[in-house]
Every structure is written in C-alpha cells, then in structure tokens.
C-alpha cells in the first residue's frame, strides 16, 4: 500500500475543505442527535425503573445484555429493518447510547445513600421533590459519566454508520480502504480519532465542573 505518503492526508483535507466541513457536520449531528434523544428516553425510563420494583430486574437485564451486543451487530440488524440512510443510522446510534445512560442513571439513583432518602422522606418530601431535590442531584455525576460514555462511543459508532449510508468521516475511511489510498483513509481516520479524544477530555473537564458543590471535598 504505497499510493501517496500517509501524511499527505493533511494536503487532502486542505484540498477538500467543503467536503471536510460537511462530513464533520454530519458526524457531529449524528452523534449529537442520538445522544440527545437517548438522554430523553433513558433518564425517564431509568427513573421509572427505580420506582417500579418488578420493572427493575428485567430492564437492567435487557440493558446489560444490550451492552454486550457488538456495536456493528446493532448497525447490521438495523439494515434489514430500516434500510439505509441517516435515519437508520440515527436509530442504531440512539439505541446504543440509551444503554449506558440508562444503566448509569439507575445505578446513580440506587447509589444514593439510603439514610439520605429515608431522612428526606421522613421530613415529608413528596415523591417528586425527592427526585428533584435529592436523587437526581446526587446521581448526576454518575449520570453524566454515562452520557460521556455514550457520546465518545457514538463518535466511533458514527464512523461505522457510513456503511449504512449515515455519512460522516466514515465515508472517507471507506473510500480510502476501497481505493487503497492512505491519504484519504487518514483524512477520515485522524479527525475522528482527534474528535473522540478531545471530546473525552472536554467532557472529563466538564464533569469535574458540574459536580454539585459539597460532593467533593473542598
């Protein structure tokens, strides 16, 4: 494989700025929407799960098994169901993002010290006040870790989404593989890697900042 030096990928990106922007946008959109939708589904579902005793076991079981299913298999299973394009890709990514956010929210709420919940109830909090004043704030660091996980993971999964026509940087990677062209391959791969790593770092920083005051020793 020697068609052009690998580091020529920078030149390739410079020569195709519009396409680069478009792929970046597609990529970010796919990740952003999927995580956002996943948050809207996963958190209420998790709250419900912690409220209904009989619901908890089956739900966490499903989520844990879901975590075990290889990502590509989820994308693969979407194809026969929904065909190709942005929506099927969004669907697969959303499913994959729901799992860690759901699990972490359940774990976060369950992890709230029983004594604190007991004290709150004893003081006469309504169910809703218990959730908003006590459980969600105390679970928020763990919940945020789940969102972080989902986001970084979906940056990778969005790369694969190119296989079912989802767009994003995966397009260039596939093209580079098909044409056996290292510069194009890397023009897709390096930005994705940088995007994933920087997102991870940024969210780590954000996590440190948004932890409710009092939960860290100051």
């Amino acid at each position: 494989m020697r068609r052009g030096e690998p580091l020529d990928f920078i030149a390739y990106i410079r020569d195709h700025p519009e396409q680069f922007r478009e792929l970046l946008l597609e990529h970010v959109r796919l990740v952003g929407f999927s995580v956002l939708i996943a948050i809207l589904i996963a958190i209420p579902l998790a709250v419900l799960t912690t409220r209904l005793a009989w619901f908890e076991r089956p739900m966490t079981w499903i989520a844990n098994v879901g975590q075990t299913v290889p990502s590509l298999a989820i994308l693969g299973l979407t194809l026969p169901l929904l065909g190709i394009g942005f929506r099927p890709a969004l669907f697969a990514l959303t499913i994959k993002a729901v799992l860690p956010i759901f699990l972490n929210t359940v774990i976060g709420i369950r992890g709230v010290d029983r004594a604190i919940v007991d004290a709150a109830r004893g003081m006469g909090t309504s169910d809703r006040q218990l959730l908003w004043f006590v459980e969600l704030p105390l679970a928020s660091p763990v919940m945020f870790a789940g969102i972080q996980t989902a986001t970084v993971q979906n940056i990778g999964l969005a790369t694969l989404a190119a296989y079912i026509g989802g767009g994003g940087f995966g397009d260039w990677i596939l093209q580079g593989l098909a044409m056996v062209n290292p510069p194009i391959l890397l023009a897709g791969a390096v930005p994705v890697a940088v995007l994933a790593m920087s997102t991870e770092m940024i969210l780590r920083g954000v996590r440190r900042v948004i932890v409710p005051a009092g939960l860290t020793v100051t």
Partner: protein
Amino acid sequence: MFYLFEQPERVFELTLEHIRLVGISVLAATLIGVPVGILCTRIRWLESPILNLSGILYTIPSLAFFAILIPYTGLGASTATIALTLYSLLAIIRNTIAGIDDVPRATLDAARGMGMTGRQRLFLVELPLAIPVIFAGIRVATMAAIGIAVIAAVIGAGGLGRLIFDGLRTLDADQVLAGAIMATVLALVGDWALKRLGDALRRDAGAAAEGR
C-alpha cells in the same frame, strides 16, 4: 437467518477465526499488561501516565485506529491484532494495579514479617490474591475485543464481521443478520463462560485465603 443453515461450515469457520483473533490479542495484552501493572505498583509515578495513555487509546474509534495503522502495518489480521491488544491493555493494567493494591496491609506485613523477599511476596501473596480482580479485567477486555474484532473484518482480518460487511456490500440482509446474531451469541456465551470462570477463581482464592 437462513444463511446460518445454508452455510454452516463458513459460519463455523468464521467463528473460529473470530475466537482466534480475540484469543491471541487478549493473551498478548495479558502478557504485556500484567507486568506493566505490577511495574506501576512498584514505581508509583508511572501509574498515572500509563493509565492516561491507555485510557486515551481506548477512546479512539476502532475503525479510525485500524485506518491509522494500515499505512504502516498493512491490511490483515496482524494489524487487527495490534489494535485489539492495545485496546485490551487498559482494562488489564488497571485491574492488575487495583488487584495488587487491594491486598490487605496486614497480609503484606505478615509476609514481610515471615521474611519473604519482595519477589516472594509478589508471587506467593500479591499476585495470587489479585487474580480474581485481574481476571475481571481480562473479562472486560475480552468482551470489548469480541465487539471490535467484528469491525476488524473490514481490514481483512476475517472473523464474523465478514458476514456483516459482505452482507452490507451486497445488500444481503440474511447474511448481515447471520453475522450480527452469531457475533451477539458469541459475546453472550463468552461473557457467561468468563463470568463462571471468574466466580470459580474467586472461590478458589477465597478458599486459599481461609486455608492460610
């Protein structure tokens, strides 16, 4: 679904290929990761840079990782093995450190008091007690590797991903489904088997601890 029954030999062959790819990578990661983890518990300042580095490697999407390696190591199973090994390192190093750090101080003091050398403490006390935790890391690494190995088919590493990628290319939903189902089954069975093995190890470690 029918593909499974029409081409059982091919499916079986690809499954074996998959297991081999995962097995070799995790084995390599264990052979590297456990000593590196031990080193981190001996030379403390190494721990944070090494964990950070492997943590960052872990966030790189696998397709991108493969793509970045290809210009240097070419297409095929060896590139996939390198990437899978690097991915697996994080969980194994982290758990090796945690497992050794978890050994109770009193146990170590007793060992020191009996006149064990550093090497004897490591092999007779720390590692045996850390094995359940290290194994838990190996399990996490294996599960990740099974999933990533599916993707490795795209760079010609073989395995069950072949079915999915071939199916996607030819729009053969049946083949995609066969690959997806087999990969899922392999992951679930693997998870279950490793969990069992881990429980057995923990029981042994517990029995050994009591027998002392």
